[in-house]
């Protein structure tokens, strides 16, 4: 098996690349825009790759059998990658594409949601782009491209900025904690190692055509339970009960200036400047949202495993403390 990982310098892409390299029986090509950032085993071939560049992508996949698409970026980058991939695949010997979509495609659906649930109106640009990427691959499936589309829920664990670093900092600053009623939404989470195991299984899933899988924990608890257990492991105790007025102030008043400051910092490339993450309105919506992403179908992915939450949080907390405290 010769595998190209697109977006190999990212959080999930790098984890997949490492896992593939560790197998020993796979030739791994790590495609990334900025090869300087790579630190992989010497067996991994590093390839400078802009997946929005059609010719470059076609060249990169011309001699591989499998592709893992972990591109994260603007809507145009993600849909552009899918389109280029679908086009290039037609004239190559590609056997399988595994692509990372997201449970965000379900929009604001409530209750129990699995792969059979029809998609409703996407709630933001990111979700709309993911829906479009899926559509492109489904179309390509009609022309012989075999792909496995994975829809992970919130990916946490070592390396996760969103669901480990950001949350840990907020817990330590007592901006998050026991949210009471505001935290009763369902915490659909997946440990990064588990997602990687699903991606690897997706590469080798027998069969043709396009298949879609939700990748999430089997019996999710509430966000409160997740926040409190994580706070405890981080030593951010006693956990504070966050009054709703504080959440509202943080989400409505502090969030916009923080967001602007972050954008400015990134534009001006002031990498050393620390700016707290905002508690966004969408985060607050998520914490209260009652939806369970059913992932029974993922049990068909042979090597997919589910790390118990306590175990996953423990390793996330350990990693966070090593790198940030």
């Amino acid at each position, binding site marked *: 098996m010769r595998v190209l990982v697109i977006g190999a310098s990212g959080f999930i892409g790098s984890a997949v690349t490492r896992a593939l390299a560790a197998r020993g029986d796979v030739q791994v090509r790590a495609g990334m825009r900025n090869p300087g950032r790579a630190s992989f085993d010497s067996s991994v071939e590093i390839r400078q790759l802009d997946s929005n560049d059609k010719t470059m992508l076609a060249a990169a996949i011309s001699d591989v059998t499998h592709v893992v698409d972990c591109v994260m970026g603007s809507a145009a980058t993600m849909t552009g990658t899918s389109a280029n991939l679908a086009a290039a695949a037609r004239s190559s010997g590609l056997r399988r594409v595994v692509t990372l979509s997201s449970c965000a495609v379900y929009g604001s659906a409530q209750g129990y949601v699995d792969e059979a649930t029809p998609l409703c109106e996407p709630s933001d640009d990111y979700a709309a782009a993911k829906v479009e990427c899926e559509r492109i691959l489904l179309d390509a499936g009609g022309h012989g491209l075999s792909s496995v589309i994975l829809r992970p829920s919130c990916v946490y664990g070592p390396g996760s900025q969103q669901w480990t670093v950001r949350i840990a900092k907020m817990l330590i600053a007592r901006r998050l904690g*026991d949210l*009471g*009623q505001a935290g*009763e939404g369902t915490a659909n989470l997946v440990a990064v190692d588990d997602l990687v195991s699903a991606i690897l299984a997706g590469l080798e899933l027998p069969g043709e055509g396009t298949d879609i899988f939700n990748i999430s924990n089997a019996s999710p608890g509430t966000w409160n339970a997740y926040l*409190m257990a994580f706070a*405890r492991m981080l030593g951010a*105790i006693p*956990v504070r*009960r966050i009054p709703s007025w504080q959440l509202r102030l943080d989400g409505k008043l502090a969030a916009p200036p923080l967001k602007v400051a972050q954008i400015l910092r990134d534009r001006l490339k002031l990498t050393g400047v620390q700016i707290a993450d905002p508690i966004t309105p969408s985060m607050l919506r998520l914490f209260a949202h009652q939806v369970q992403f059913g992932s029974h179908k993922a049990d068909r992915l042979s090597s997919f495993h589910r790390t118990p939450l306590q175990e996953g949080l423990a390793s996330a907390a350990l990693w966070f403390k090593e790198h940030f405290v």
Partner: protein
Amino acid sequence: MIDTAKTLPSGTILDADICIVGAGAAGIALALQFADTDKTVLLIESGDVAENPEIQALYEGSVVDPALHSPADRYRQRVFGGTTTIWGGRCIPFDPIDFDLRAWIDNSGWPIEYAEVAGYYPAANALCEAGDCDYDARSALGAPMRPMIEGFHSSHFNADSLERFSCPTNFAARYGHRLSASRNIRVLLNANCTEIVANNRGDHVDHIILRTLSGGHFEARARKFILAMGGLEIPRILLASNRVHPRGIGNGHDLVGRYYMCHIAGTIGDVRFSVPKEQVWHGYENAWDGVYCRRRLALTPETQRALQVGNVVMRLHHPRLVDPGHQTGILSAIYLAKPLISYEYAKRLYGPDPVGLGDYLRHVLNVVSQPIRTARFLADWAWRRTLAVRKFPSIIIASTANRYSLDVHAEQIPNPESRVSLAETRDPLGLPRIAIDWRYTAADIDTVATALRLLKQDFAAWGGGTLEYDEDEVEAAMLREGAYGGHHIGTARMGRTAEEGVVDRDCRVFGIDNLYIAGSAVFPTSSQANPTLTIVAMALRLADHLRHRFAPSTIAAGVTAQEHE
């Protein structure tokens, strides 16, 4: 779904699998257990979302001795959420000995094992938001907890026994959204149950009658009815429903309304420590999840057995607030804030004795002479209590003089002469009002006197402190504010047989196949513990029982055979 009866056409007949009357701690805890199941639940609530004096007035009644018991419409709230809208949040499980048949206490003993209720305490703790179900100071915090009195050990008292605090959680505010999101639950506000109507044979509830203050009149039909209206209202509705049962429903043996218990409580004594004051700690510590925990001195079950007394706990307490002699600015500030404090909380804080102008001015002097300490306390109070959701539970002031009083909370023994009955007058909906004749016994006082005597001896033997109090004043001190408010226990007690109790071990009214009671009315004994945690645990237990009765196997076996067993 949350609805109001105000807009319901008069004459409507409502129908559900389960009809619960009263949306307080018990009713809401019970209804939540059926959220998103295939059982339809009707949760009937007299109150509205906000308090309304006209609805609250339906609780008015008479009290035989107003010095001994607060007015019938105080210490309970007729509003969505019930009395949890004003409760203090102190959570304590009952003790195993409370369930035992104790030969020295008449009418003691529960017909169920302690373990049958204890199994529900963890889930009840979670609903009350009181954290982990660990009430032992040696393990609860996950870290060593400060001792109450360093170096003091007594074989008569357990100082590792904790109380934990709910936020305090207002059950309607906290869980209303779950009730409203659940498709199979319908909460009906502004609906007053005024009668339980049995069939002609008197062995089955056919329907209940509901009325609104604006003249609306409805019926609710259900397979199971659960009364969860609080310990004073449950006997009232049972006694008033006398259409088929002339003495009232469940009252064939004249037990309804009898054995009425609150708690015996008060502050007493002068404790002076000679050990350094850093070695004495009567405040709170937070468990990992933020829950406030505090130690108490609990009379051990062995001592209770050996000395044949009831259950009792004591806490170290600040000196009496009303006496400016404590010279503490903070305490005086709290005294001066009296007009801002609600009746329910003012009663125990200040007591009934008036304060003269001279003492009033001395309080003012105390405040102005310690401005910084007082201001710091008030700022802290604003942050940790007023602005917080998980509220700092009570006023804790470390004594500069190393002097404290004792705050006592003791079991009352079950006494048939202490009772709630129907008065001659009626409320605007036509329901007879209640008459409260609360009594205490010499045995109740003896429990407290014994505990005080033991503590005094134990302090003397230890040598690090002394307890002074007047033995002849114990009774007066425990009755200064009358019966402990808000705990309404025993008025529809659980028994092995209909001769012994109003409800059976499943909380079902004897002789009626589909009427159940949730709440402290069913407790045969009162314990040292505040009742709500156990009310919630018992409601969860009742939910399991009902689920079991509804289980498919039951239906397959024939509903009628089962229901009329």
